[in-house]
């Protein structure tokens, strides 16, 4: 019985933590239009904080991250599309500001080398097995 209670309690606790992902957006930054706010949050999640570097600006408390969050919301209000906003940011900070590197000629290796390595690994495994089967 105690065990059961413990498990239930722990799972609720874990689940709660899972839902309660931290973000840095301050109340006065939030837009009135809910759809626009969701768009702003989505863009912010894909934009790197240049100071903390492994956080998105959605999670970072750095002043520059806040400035960029406010700026993104301003651009949305002006009626800019998501692509226009990403372009605006990469024009100034380069592709590095995007947490996911774009698929370009120069990033082909980055995107496809893992699959090539996987294929090589599978081939090696396959031929290795064949050899031992014969023995």
């Amino acid at each position, binding site marked *: 019985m105690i065990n059961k209670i413990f498990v239930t309690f722990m799972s609720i606790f874990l689940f709660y933590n899972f839902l309660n992902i931290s973000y840095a957006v301050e109340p006065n930054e939030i837009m009135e239009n809910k759809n626009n706010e969701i768009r702003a949050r989505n863009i912010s999640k894909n934009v790197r904080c*240049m100071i903390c570097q492994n956080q998105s600006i959605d999670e970072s408390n750095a002043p520059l991250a806040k400035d960029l969050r406010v700026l993104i919301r301003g651009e949305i209000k002006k009626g800019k599309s998501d692509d226009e906003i990403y372009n605006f940011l990469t024009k100034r900070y380069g592709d590095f500001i995007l947490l996911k590197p774009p698929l370009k000629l120069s990033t082909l290796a980055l995107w496809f080398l893992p699959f090539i390595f996987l294929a090589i690994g599978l081939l090696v495994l396959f031929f290795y097995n064949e050899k031992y089967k014969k023995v």
Partner: protein
Amino acid sequence: MKKQILIVPSIFFLFIISIFFYLLTIDRNPSEIPSNLINKTVPFFETETLLKNKKFISSNEFGNEIILVNFFATWCKPCREEHKYIIKLSKKNNLRIIGINYKDDPKKSIAWLKNLGNPYSDVPLDKNGRIAIDWGVYGIPETFVINSDGIIEYRHVGPITKKIYEKINLLISTLK
């Protein structure tokens, strides 16, 4: 047979190790990100200035001579440390230096420049940090070298050290 197979992975492993070793030993700062503005014209901005009673309009100022642009603030300690090099740069090359005052209190800036010396020809104010974003600035102090066509030649993030001072001097002498 087995020994032969082991040769390939060990060569591969050594290759990777040597790459790691190389990256560890060279003088490299991984937090320094190359600027996307190199070889591009200076971003347009228009703002008030600290010491003169006139507006600073970037399109009127750039494109005639080599200009150094330095983002600084009085609350930024490395800015204080690099200031002596900026003064040296302005004296040695008779260089025009524009100091963009980033998110600062004008009163403190005036006192700061009186105290440490003022190498800047103009001090445009970037009150909310919007100009810095247009320049792709992410950690002040940052310094840009702009050639006489108004094109950004070089960007340095962080304080100017002796090494960077020499690098900028060399760059300016080649641009002249």
